[in-house]
Each structure stands twice: as C-alpha cells, then as structure tokens.
C-alpha cells in the first residue's frame, strides 16, 4: 500500500474542488436544510460559464464573473418554483435540473459551444489561469508531494483551490454565527416557527441557495482546471459523492466538509489499493466498482449509525422529514 498516493490525493486540486463543493452544499443542507441533489449541475454551470467564455476569447476575470452570474441565475431559476415546496420535491427538481445541464452540455445541439460529449479540452481554457502562476513551469517535489508548477493539477491550482476553501470556510463560520445564519438554522429546524416571527422564509432560502450555488460553481472551475470540462464526469454520482463527503465530516460544521472530503478520498484510494490485495483474483476492471460500492455502503452505515458525521452535533442535524 502506497501512503504517498493517499497523501498526494488529500492535498490534490481535485480534493480542494470537492471540499469547496461540499462547503457550498453545507450552505444548502447544513445551514438551511435544502436537499440540493444537483451540486454537480452547479459545478457544470460554473465550468461551462468560465470555459466557454475563455475559449471564445473573453478575458479570465470577465469569464469568472460570467460563471458566477450564471450560477446566480441558475439558483434563482431553480429556487423560484421549488423553494415553496416540500423538501423531497426540491431534491427531485434539483437532480432533474442538474441532468438537464449535463444533457444539454453533452448534446450535439450546442456542440460548437460546449464541445458535445467530449467537452472542452484543457488547452482551450486553462491558459489564462496558468499564465498567472508564480511557480516555475516544471515538476516540483516538496517532501512526499510532487506536482507540476503551473500546468493542470499544479501547485498553483492547489494554492488557489485551498485558499478558496479557507476563505469560504471562514465565510461559513462567520455567517453561521451571524443573525442571518440563526434565521437559516431556524428555517432548517422549523420553517413555520420562523415564518410566524415575520421572517421571509422564501427570501432567506433563496439567499442560501444562491451563495451555496456560487461556491459550487467556483468548485467546478477549480475542478475543471485540474481535469477538463467533461459533462459525463459531473453526473448524479458526483453529487452523491459530495453528499457522502459532507455527511462524513459532519453537516452544519465549519470543518466537516473539509475533513469529510479529505477522508473520503483517502479511504477511496486506500480501498482501490487494498482491494486487489485482499481479493487476489479480482479483475482490474472490477476494482473501481468495488470501491464505489464501498462508498455507497459507507454512506448507508453513516446515515444509520452516525447521521451527524464525525464532527457534527446530533441535535443540530435532526431534520424533520
């Protein structure tokens, strides 16, 4: 078993991106109790907004704004019909909306913009970000870690990704303590009670949806810089993974999403390495499904035996479903 691989995945840009998405989901679910099952859709909106703009010659800062505005519009569009409805309706609509984004993205219809099912190649949109890198353009080894200085999953991207994670964790901590956060937590626990206090529940939910949505979109952009823009890697499974990460670490906590994401990837890589050792006659194509099935099984055990996750408070997460 290679511990280096595990350490490497923990600090990798992919983990940072997922941690960011988990923080976004934490605003939705942890703080407000919204069952957003379309996190991957928000991420796709972010990466398409940025990637399409940059590959058509828009400067990076404007592309970033376009991506953020896209995520805000998507949140508003999604929240408008559904936030008045019961939780499971919201879950079904968000999952459906995420699928719409993915299907349109991979469709031949807008191929000139989205690249169809092959998506947008890295070299078409990564340039502006990589040019900003302060690191030398070569492989750099620091202790057990080795990444490139500027290209794709680089030290530069790691730096930016984790700084974003830190910033939004801080934002969550601050907002969670604020009167605004208390209203949201009130909505999570008992919507009607908050409404009877004269608060505009719909408006508060919408604000939380937009903030979480923008964070998820940024997560999508970070992820795309470490990989590429590919609609099919942002399907339902990705959303379910992010849920597992958040619930593992502990919803409604500041460090839960980060811890959960790091642990998830560490465990995932460990299972993938251990599976062929424990089950020697496993075909190499079966390693991935085994690891994924283990993720699902872990999620079940988690919800049944420790719904609050590692850091969570059981009283906080008592959702009335």
């Amino acid at each position, binding site marked *: 078993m290679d511990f280096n691989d595990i350490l490497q995945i923990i600090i990798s840009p992919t983990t940072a991106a997922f941690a960011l998405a988990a923080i976004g989901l934490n605003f939705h679910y942890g703080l407000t109790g919204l*069952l957003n099952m379309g996190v991957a859709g928000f991420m796709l909106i972010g990466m398409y907004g940025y990637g399409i703009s940059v590959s058509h010659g828009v400067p990076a800062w404007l592309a970033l704004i376009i991506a953020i505005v896209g995520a805000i519009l998507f949140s508003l569009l999604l929240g408008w*019909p*559904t936030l008045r*409805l*019961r*939780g*499971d*309706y919201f*879950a*079904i*609509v968000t*999952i*459906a*909306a995420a*699928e*719409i984004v993915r*299907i*349109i993205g*991979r*469709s*031949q*219809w807008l191929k000139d913009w989205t690249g169809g099912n092959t998506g947008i190649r890295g070299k078409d949109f990564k340039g502006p970000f990589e040019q900003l890198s302060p690191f030398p353009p070569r492989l750099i080894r620091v202790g057990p870690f080795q990444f490139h200085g500027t290209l794709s999953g680089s030290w530069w991207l790691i730096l930016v990704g984790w700084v974003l994670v830190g910033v939004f964790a801080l934002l969550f901590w601050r907002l969670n303590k604020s009167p605004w956060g208390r209203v949201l937590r009130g909505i999570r626990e008992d919507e009607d009670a908050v409404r009877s206090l004269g608060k505009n529940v719909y408006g508060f939910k919408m604000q939380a949806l937009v903030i979480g949505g923008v964070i998820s979109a940024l997560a999508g952009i970070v992820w795309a810089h470490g990989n590429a823009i590919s609609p099919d890697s942002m399907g*339902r*499974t990705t959303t*379910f993974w992010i*849920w*597992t990460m958040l*619930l593992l670490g502990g919803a409604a906590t500041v460090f839960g999403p980060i811890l959960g994401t790091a642990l998830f990837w560490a465990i995932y890589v460990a299972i993938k390495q251990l599976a062929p050792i424990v089950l020697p006659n496993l075909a190499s*194509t*079966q390693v991935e*499904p*085994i690891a*994924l*099935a283990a*993720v*699902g*099984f*872990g*999620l*079940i055990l*988690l*919800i*049944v035996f420790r*719904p609050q996750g590692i850091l969570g408070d059981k009283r906080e997460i*008592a*959702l*009335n*479903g």
Partner: protein
Amino acid sequence: MQQSTVSSLARNTVLWRIVAIIAIVAVLAFMIAQAAQAAPSQAESPAIGAGENRLLQTLLNGVIFGLLLALASVGLSLIYGTTGLSNFAHGEQVTFGAASAFVAVSAGAPLWAAIIIAVFAGAASGWVQDVLLWKQLRKRNVPHMQQMIVSIGLALVLINMMQIWIGPDRLRLSTESPVKKHFGPFALTPQTAMSMLICVIALGAVAYFLMRTRLGRATRAVSDNPALAAATGISVNRVIRVVWMMAAGLAALAGPLLALYGDTLDFTLGSRILLLMFAAVTLGGLGHPFGAAIGALIIGIVAELATVYAPTPDLKYAAVMAILILTLLVRPQGILGRKERVG
C-alpha cells in the same frame, strides 16, 4: 367523513377513466399483435414506409415506452405512498430484473421463463431489503430525508454490484433480431406488442389489487394515514412488506421488457430511467399509483416526441426533465394529487 366519501367517489371515477384508457390501449395492442402475426412480413415494404405516418408512429413508440415506464414507476409511487420514501435505488431494481433475466437466459432458460424468474427474484429482493434495511430504519424512526439518502447509498452499492455481476458491456437478452411488422400507419415487432400486452395486464392487476382486494384497500388506507390504519387493525408493517415485494417485482418485470424494447441491456439500464420514473410519479401526483401510470404515459410520449421535434434527438431526456419542472410550477401536487399534500 362526508368529505372522504366524496373524494373516494371522485377517485373511483378517475380509476374508471384510467381503466378505460388502459383497456383501449390493450385492445389496440392486441389488434396490432394479431395483425402483425397474421400478415406475412412484406419484403417490399421499406424500413420507414411511404404510407407510415411519422407522428403516429412516434406517438405509438411513446405509448410503448410510457407503458414500460409505468410498470417501473408504479412501485416507486406505492413505496412513496405507504412509507414516505423517495427511493433512489428503484432504478437498480429495474436493472436487477433485466440482469436476472439475462443470467437465466444464459443458463438456458427460455425467455418467458427467464422473465418469470426475474419477477420472483425481484420480489424476493424487495422482501430481503425490507427485512434487513427499511423495516429497521422505520423501527429506529429515521426521518424520511435520511432514509432517502440511505436509498442513494443503496443505489451506489447496487449499481456497482450489478456491474461486477454482469460486467460493464452491453448485452442482449434475445439473440434473434426482431422483424418489424407493418400494420396501417404503425410498425412494431410482435415482441413489442407482447410487451405492451404484458404491461397492460400487469397494470390492470395492480389496479384490481388496490381497488378490489382486502390487502389492496389496506394498502390505500396506509397510504392515506398510517396511524389511523394501524388503529383500525391493519398491520402496517405487513402491508409495507407486500408493497416492497410488489414494487420490486413490477420493476423487475419492467427490466427485461425494457431490455427487449431497446434490444440492449447493461448495468445502467435502470439508473438511466430513474429520473424519468420520478418525473412520472411527480407528474401524476406523488404517492398515487394511478397518477404514476398516467404520468408515465405522458412522459413516454413526450420523450419520443422530443426525439423528433427537439433540436437534436439526444435532448429527449432534457425535455422530460423540463416537463417535470414545469409541472411543479403549475400544479405541484401533480395530476391526481391533493393540494394539501405539498406542504
């Protein structure tokens, strides 16, 4: 009391309308099947016949797909109605049926026997699931939302187990290549006509069960109000167990039929239509099995029409998702739902 009698009467007329629609479709399907059997395959008829009406053919395809979808969705709706669970693992039940049938066929069983085996295997899996998992969660009073997330975990487990079981490749349930027979404006294979007939009979049986049998009435009572049902002496857990077996069995029947209809199956067969099932169930009204059937027919027709009228055919599922969201805008409780349920 008065209120509930009125609403149950209203629901009865709705039921009869549904039965009438299903009966018409059944007669149609039967006639087509007969004609297809009787008419010798005409060598000179082109693949897309000159006399064929594309719209009518698309509509027919939509009805076929809708019926298959209805078969798969009714169980989802029944489970939601009786337990309040949005079961994200229901797609895997469909795949499980198709996979079981495939394994049975590979072992040498004839197709019809394989389908029956699949249904029993599906029902058994429903029973096992309820005993090992869902009953325990109900006992621990795990909230519905958390149960939903458990079902997501279960879906992840099942789809990957299925991939290990039948492999990642596309498979075929029947090696004979079906020949489309022409009848008036329509073209379809005898196999598809038979599938439609099976769907109609199975859906009719579910309707009969719910409306005319003791256990079916008990099921509806549990759907309406579990506590009250328990107070009148209905064993809620027994009803729910039957519902799980029925739901899984129906999904397992839909699996091989879908595999035959598309002439291909793989481990994602069911998960690909999961959202269509949710759309059907929501459109019809969450928790109303008849609503799910109507919703599924509409969804099936929309999906097939979209292959013709959407900018590109690969947008057909997006069209369905859009319908789902529009439904929630206009009538969130669905076609048959009652307003109060939405909360």
